[in-house]
């Protein structure tokens, strides 16, 4: 009886340990998604493939299109494409301290709503949106870019692609 109880307890504990490990491994807050403690709310300079995009889970390799969201607690989330940032924010109720993007023309980090967006850039996820610090003809503001992204009117749509880039 004693041996049976010990074996039973062992099995229960082993199962509990496996469940905890599986739960932890399945979480989105893994080592490569969030940078913690950024209470200075400054952009975090990351190396290629060091972090993954919080929306699409792809390794961030092309740094020119990098966007970041910083929460009041200093948690910093990374995005490989400004389109991913828009989708991620849409699916969550999260308080943001700062949403910033790198700009293609100056290479500076600026607030996403202060940037101007081109619609035909070869962005990593192929949505076509990319941030510029200085306005040029045909560039759109953040709110318009966000709306187009959420409506699916980006380069993933063949009709939009044809109208923006011409027949391929």
């Amino acid at each position, binding site marked *: 009886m004693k041996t049976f109880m*010990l*074996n039973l*307890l*062992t099995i229960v*504990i082993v199962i509990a340990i496996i469940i905890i490990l599986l739960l932890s*491994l399945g979480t989105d807050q893994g080592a490569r998604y*969030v940078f*913690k403690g*950024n209470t200075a709310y400054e952009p975090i300079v990351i190396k290629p493939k060091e972090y993954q995009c919080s929306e699409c889970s792809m390794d961030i390799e092309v740094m020119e299109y990098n966007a970041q969201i910083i929460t009041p607690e200093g948690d910093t989330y990374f995005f490989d494409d400004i389109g991913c940032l828009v989708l991620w924010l849409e699916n969550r109720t999260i308080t943001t301290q700062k949403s910033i993007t790198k700009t293609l023309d100056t290479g500076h980090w600026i607030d996403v709503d202060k940037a101007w967006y081109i619609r035909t850039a070869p962005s990593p996820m192929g949505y076509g949106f990319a941030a510029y610090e200085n306005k040029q003809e045909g560039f759109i503001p953040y709110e318009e870019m966000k709306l187009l992204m959420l409506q699916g009117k980006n380069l993933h749509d063949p009709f939009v692609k044809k109208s923006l880039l011409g027949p391929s």
Partner: protein
Amino acid sequence: MNEIFLSNEVITYLLSEIVLYILLLIAAIATVGILKGWNFDHFTEKQFVLENRSYLVMSIIFFVLGLKIVLLPYFAYTIDSLSVLVPGAMCAAGVIDANGYGDPLLVLKIMILFVSGLWLRVNRIDLGEKSYPYMKLKSWFFLLIFILLSVEVVLDILYFSHIETTKPVSCCSVIFGELGGNTLPFGLDIKKLLILFYLLYILSVLMLHSQRYVMRVAVMLFFGLIAYYSIVYFFGTYIYELPTHRCPFCMLQAEYFYVGYILWGLLFMGMFLAIESVVLEGVFGKNALKLKKVSIGLLTLFVLLCSSYVGIYYLKNGVFL
């Protein structure tokens, strides 16, 4: 000359290591000779000489490996004392990180501690038998340890000779601190880490009551890993009474009553005796009840000591960190 070599602790440590290594080198050469000619069934003069020599050699190895076990905490003390010389280092964490040799050296030292302990046990079993049945086994085992010891001496010299006193290193709050991503393994958070810690402790005790040897070793190694992270990222903060202070080395200092030596000592000894009990029962078929009892006692003391820091802090302040 590197300033590091002028430190009393480094001189003492390196001299001890080199003297012990020379003794082991002599023992290793003699062991090869013994292995070549050993046959306990022969009643020749040569065998008689070999038996006498082997007793001397094994005594040397026993003495040196025993001292090497004591030298590990002294190594920790030595690198901790160097933190005043290396700019930026607040404790041994910064010093061990001062070059690329530090971390592999520390891991190798812990490995050597474990295998040396096992050799001492095999030697004890062999000397307790009439015909030295494990003579060849323990000789080969020693030669394997000797290779590790040779690498260790080279790493020792490379490590201490490459510590620069002009180049700043990171302090422990940068190495283990809050900045950066989640450094816990398997995507764990602190709550799940603690649940795992206590569950693995109970599982370790249960495994010490069972005959599942492979599982006992696996559970012990996993408990060691989880215990390391639990100390650095949770229990340590209660020892330092500071939620942002995460370091496995600062607790070795006088400000914390050298509790790190006791804490790490209890964990390593508890783990080692559990693994040794597997060798004793599984390989040699001997009774290891006493070892298992001591192992459970040490691991229990370790868990109680860790938990008591949290409990005492809560009783004194009414809040958790």
